[in-house]
């Protein structure tokens, strides 16, 4: 019983990191109806930037904030230079661009930083595990950081004029332009936010799995499954789905398929959701406007 509880709780810890990436995926999906397959690699690259800054002597939280700012700007620039020109292109062209970005980030990271595993520091210290020995200090800290991010993002979208404009632009671009919202600028802002949220997830997961260019491959898969499970149109669903995926992963790994095959649970969940309830737990069916 204690083992089960342990699996669930540490599942919540990794799940909260998946939840951040799920949220980033959903934000882009709501705005563009596309899945940014490069979201994970962008986060990985951001984490390398953080590591470079830390190795250059910048204190952890300084590097953290700088990385967020750089990721935000890079996300905006990418939307402007790569995705914006494809706005009217067929969907496959964008999918190609996303996959291209994925490969480019992966390869440049490998080229610049090598493919060997590198330790990434945790700001929460080593210390003794807490909560009856179930969670490391870093896991508790990363849950805290994730929660904080989610609350800030939620408050931004819920209570600020800019957040409302971003939501309006995502839901109904035409009406948004008619009330004076620069929809293109909102899209790049959304990309910047998603990149920054992804960067946080990368910096939180790296101390657990070690940093290498393929670090986010599995994470992206779990996060995508989580986003679908929660409902790809629902930010709240993304968070719930992401956390659930962390728990499902742990339980399946411990009791069902074993650690070697646990990544398959993500694929099983993706297929099950798409077959049984494509809208996920909290999502809504997308009505296409004619």
């Amino acid at each position, binding site marked *: 019983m204690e083992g089960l509880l342990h699996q669930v709780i540490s599942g919540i810890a990794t799940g909260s990191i998946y939840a951040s990436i799920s949220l980033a995926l959903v934000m882009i999906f709501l705005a563009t109806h596309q899945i940014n397959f490069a979201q994970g690699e962008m986060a990985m690259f951001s984490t390398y930037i953080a590591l470079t800054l830390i190795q250059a002597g910048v204190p952890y939280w300084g590097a953290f904030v700088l990385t967020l700012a750089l990721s935000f700007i890079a996300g905006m620039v990418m939307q402007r230079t790569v995705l914006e020109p494809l706005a009217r292109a067929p969907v496959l062209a964008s999918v190609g661009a996303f996959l291209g970005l994925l490969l480019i980030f992966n390869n440049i990271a490998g080229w610049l930083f090598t493919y060997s595993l590198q330790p990434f520091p945790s700001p929460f210290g080593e210390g003794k595990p807490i909560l009856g020995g179930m969670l490391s200090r870093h896991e508790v800290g990363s849950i805290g950081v994730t929660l904080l991010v989610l609350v800030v993002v939620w408050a931004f979208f819920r209570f600020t004029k800019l957040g*409302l*404009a971003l939501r309006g632009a995502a839901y109904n671009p035409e009406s948004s332009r008619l*009330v*004076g919202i620069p*929809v293109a600028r909102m899209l790049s802002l959304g990309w910047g936010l998603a990149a920054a949220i992804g960067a946080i997830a990368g910096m939180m997961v790296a101390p657990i799995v070690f940093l290498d260019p393929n670090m986010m491959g599995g994470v992206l898969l779990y996060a995508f499954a989580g986003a679908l499970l929660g409902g790809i149109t629902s930010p709240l669903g993304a968070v719930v789905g992401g956390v659930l995926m962390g728990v499902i992963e742990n339980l399946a790994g411990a009791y069902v398929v074993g650690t070697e095959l646990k990544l398959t649970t993500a694929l099983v969940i993706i297929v099950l959701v798409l077959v049984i309830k494509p809208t996920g737990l909290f999502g809504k069916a997308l009505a296409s406007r004619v």
Partner: protein
Amino acid sequence: MSDTEKSTAEKGTAEKGGAGEIPILEARDLHAGYGPVKVLHGMDFVVNTGGVTTLLGANGAGKTTTLRAICGMVRSTGELIFDGRRINNMPTEAIAAMRVGHVPDGRGTFMELSVEENLRLGGYARRDPIEADIERMFGYFPKLKDRYRQQAGTLSGGEQQMLAIARALMIKPRLLLLDEPSFGLAPLIVREIFAIMRQIIASERTSILLVEQNASLALAIADMAYLIETGKIVMSGPAADIRKDESVRRAYLGY
């Protein structure tokens, strides 16, 4: 914002006193269409400052395309002069920011957002506080007040039309474009909405371009009218005269 408002208001009254009133919007030889399909073939019309102008015509005559050209959603050639400035092919959001309110074809409701959020988005282009204006909208449309927190997608067609008008008014429009506010609504609801529009015309300081299929309704509240057939103006004049015209009566009013 308030400075420009004052100056235009003063200009408006000064112009009204003079002989030649300067129109808020003027179209000269306006051409527009969708790719190779041309819809407007040289339209000339004016919307007088502070007045209600209506464009009447059958389905496919080019009414909606005219409005879309004005707000920059379809490309156009010729001249579209808003407040002395050529606005052809400017970005839609820039035209809106010049305080052109638009009640679009299909109402343009932000379905997933609440009634309140729809109204707030309507006031996006403004820098001044908008709370008082939201309250003012509830004066016109008490039904929206009851549904303040409700998701706009759950509103009835009539309520969504009211929301669309309120949303467009939130920008404090100097020109309000209305695209068939009667479309797809029960006659009783249409009458209610047009009664409210009379109040709005009486108390808001705005110029209106109303596009309608329902000619008798439109002519009752407009002071100038234009008749469009296949992208061209075929007749124009004071609404009262158009209403009396024999051929218009037979073709558009049905009596």
